[in-house]
């Protein structure tokens, strides 16, 4: 019995031990199931977080080049310095060293880091120099890292500043081409999921979440060589005449492509420390002005289109002034009886007004509107002011009269260049383009071929015998018109503040180049467009024609050195142009 009872005792103990094992096993299985089934997502996430990383892959911003492929804006990678405030706060002793390395003060670091102590990321220095990067890598400061970013450089500096605009520190376009074509130029950042080892090296590329897309390169219609010449001459002239500002636009009338677009004052886009609005305004498109006598050719074109005038129709401008209602339109002096060509060569306001008053307002409006006044030049640069051309239904006689010589309407330099391109392209209006055109844009005929050619013919006389003699370019017939405009102020027209204008083209028979020069408030004592703006036109066009290899129209005498006298450019002026 005792043996049997002891047997039962041992059997009981075996069962107990088994039961304990089973319970342990059950607990383990339950725990395993719990982890595997219920908490799986949470755990997987945390496990992955220990070694899976999402990294962004930087995208290049596209390059901007001129029409010949010369780079005008390039992005290069630079390093930015960043820090982890939490870790840095534990190593305050290294801040002095850091401040010295990134060229700042510990006070500045305090202000930067202390308020952000809970964050994981703060920029310490954007776009560090190469020297800084090398030293920082050696210093190995705790909580400080380097991040690759892009920086934009403009090799041509101030010469192309207004046209190109610039980007901000985050690589987004702010002005000019950089803004207008931002979506084309900008790349799309990609992201990758990767496995990293203990040392932070990427071991495995798990999946590509988004591929990085580089921005597209952009080819402008600008010719860097012509742009440079135009900038050099404009800058020299603005300085020589002590002018407030200036603009010059050069257009190929046969395609509508803008070959040069320069303004003064300018700025260095690579170092925009103290940038003021007046420096970065692209005046050729943002500033509007009354075009003055430079619209007379358009008035004459309207008169020719009406069929009532020919180039030799005589107009009486005596006695040098005439009354329109309560107003008086006057000339510099009494030109007496002149023909239509004479109205242009002598720039007679009386003649132009009398012609305009004899025309149907609707016809005059349709020509002014047709050449692009009061509508966008379509060049697509940001901030274009399209000026003003009022509705003919509201025109009073005095408005018709003053509009004939360019008061009472306003344009920007780009629009004026386009209006002259219509004359140059035998009466066809094209949208202007700042990018290289692969296919021509839609065109519109606004003047007959006959009218455009006759006006051009008349305009060559302005340069050979009229107010625009300083615009002559040896080797070519130049067609163009001067303008001297009283600036309008809040208290009416200023007596002593002028805008000097010249708009012209060459070669007159088949123009390849159209240019507009605007000099704002020359204060050197000279203010006539023929004295201030026309010489700039001549100098720039002489060089542009040579650069483009235009065939000279006129056989020249090698001993004729008239050009040498007018185009003496000294080296001071050139030294001023540096990137």
């Amino acid at each position, binding site marked *: 019995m005792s043996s049997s009872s002891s047997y039962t005792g041992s059997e009981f103990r075996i069962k107990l031990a088994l039961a304990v094992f089973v319970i342990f096993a059950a607990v383990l299985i339950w725990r395993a199931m719990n982890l595997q089934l219920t908490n799986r997502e949470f755990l997987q996430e945390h496990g992955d977080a220990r070694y899976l990383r999402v990294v962004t892959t930087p995208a*290049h911003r596209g390059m901007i080049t001129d029409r010949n492929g010369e*780079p005008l804006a*390039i*992005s*290069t*990678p630079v390093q930015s310095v960043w820090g982890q405030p939490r870790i840095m706060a534990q190593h305050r002793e290294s801040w002095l060293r850091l401040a010295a390395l990134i060229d700042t003060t510990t006070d500045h670091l305090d202000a930067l880091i202390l308020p952000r102590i809970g964050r994981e990321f703060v920029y310490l220095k954007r776009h560090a120099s190469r020297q800084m990067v090398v030293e920082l890598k050696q210093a190995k400061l705790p909580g400080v890292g380097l991040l*690759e970013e892009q920086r934009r*450089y403009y*090799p*041509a*500096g101030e*010469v192309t500043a207004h046209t190109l605009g610039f980007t901000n520190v985050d690589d987004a376009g702010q002005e000019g081409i950089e803004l207008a074509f931002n979506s084309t130029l900008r790349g799309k950042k990609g992201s990758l999921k990767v496995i990293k080892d203990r040392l932070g*090296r*990427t*071991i*495995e*590329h798990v999946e590509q979440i988004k591929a990085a897309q580089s921005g597209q390169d952009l080819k402008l219609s600008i010719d*860097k*060589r012509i742009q*440079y010449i135009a900038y*050099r001459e404009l800058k020299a002239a603005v300085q020589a005449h002590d002018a407030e500002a200036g603009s010059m636009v050069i257009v190929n009338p046969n395609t509508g492509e803008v070959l040069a677009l320069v303004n003064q004052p300018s700025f260095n886009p690579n170092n925009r420390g103290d940038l003021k609005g007046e420096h970065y305004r692209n005046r050729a498109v943002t500033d509007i002005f009354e075009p003055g006598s430079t619209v007379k050719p358009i008035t004459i074109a309207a008169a020719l289109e009406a069929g009532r005038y020919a180039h030799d129709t005589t107009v009486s401008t005596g006695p040098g002034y005439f009354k329109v209602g309560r107003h008086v339109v006057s000339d510099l002096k009494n030109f007496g009886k002149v023909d239509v060509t004479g109205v242009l060569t002598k720039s007679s306001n009386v003649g132009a007004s009398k012609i305009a008053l004899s025309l149907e307002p609707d016809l005059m409006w349709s020509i002014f509107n047709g050449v692009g006044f009061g509508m966008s030049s379509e060049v697509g640069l940001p901030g274009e002011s399209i000026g003003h051309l009022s509705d003919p239904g509201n025109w009073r006689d005095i408005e018709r009269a003053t509009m004939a010589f360019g008061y009472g309407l306003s344009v920007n330099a780009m629009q004026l260049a386009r209006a002259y391109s219509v004359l140059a392209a035998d009466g066809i209006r094209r949208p202007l383009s700042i990018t290289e055109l692969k296919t021509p844009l839609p065109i519109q005929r606004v003047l007959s071929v006959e009218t455009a050619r006759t006006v051009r013919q008349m305009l060559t006389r302005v340069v050979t015998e009229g107010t625009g003699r300083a615009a002559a*370019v*040896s*080797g070519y017939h130049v067609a163009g018109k001067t303008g001297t405009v009283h600036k309008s102020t809040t208290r009416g027209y200023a007596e002593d503040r002028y805008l000097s204008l010249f708009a012209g083209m060459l070669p007159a028979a088949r123009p390849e180049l159209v240019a507009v020069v605007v000099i704002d408030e020359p204060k050197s004592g000279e203010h006539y467009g023929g004295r201030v703006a026309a010489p700039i036109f001549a100098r720039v066009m*002489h*060089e542009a024609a*040579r650069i483009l290899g235009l*065939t*000279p129209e006129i056989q*020249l*005498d*090698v*001993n*004729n*050195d008239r*050009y*040498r006298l007018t*185009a003496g450019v000294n*080296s001071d002026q*050139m*030294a*001023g*142009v*540096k*990137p």
Partner: protein
Amino acid sequence: MGVFLTAMEVVLHRHQSRELFLVLQELRLQQNDLDREWGQLLLEQGTWGTHGRIEEIARNKLNMTVPLAAEIFRVRS
């Protein structure tokens, strides 16, 4: 046995792919460095080749002048 062999193969290839990926990574870094250098050289070229600088050297150091329109002869081919 077959299962064991394929398992070994998987391990081997996984290791190889990681090694190759490291090489790829290296090459990407190299490409990036070369890109950077190319950008910097373009810039350097742009700076040395600024029209203003070339013009100054041409006029002042080399005594070159812009030919007059009359001095330019067009060769007809």
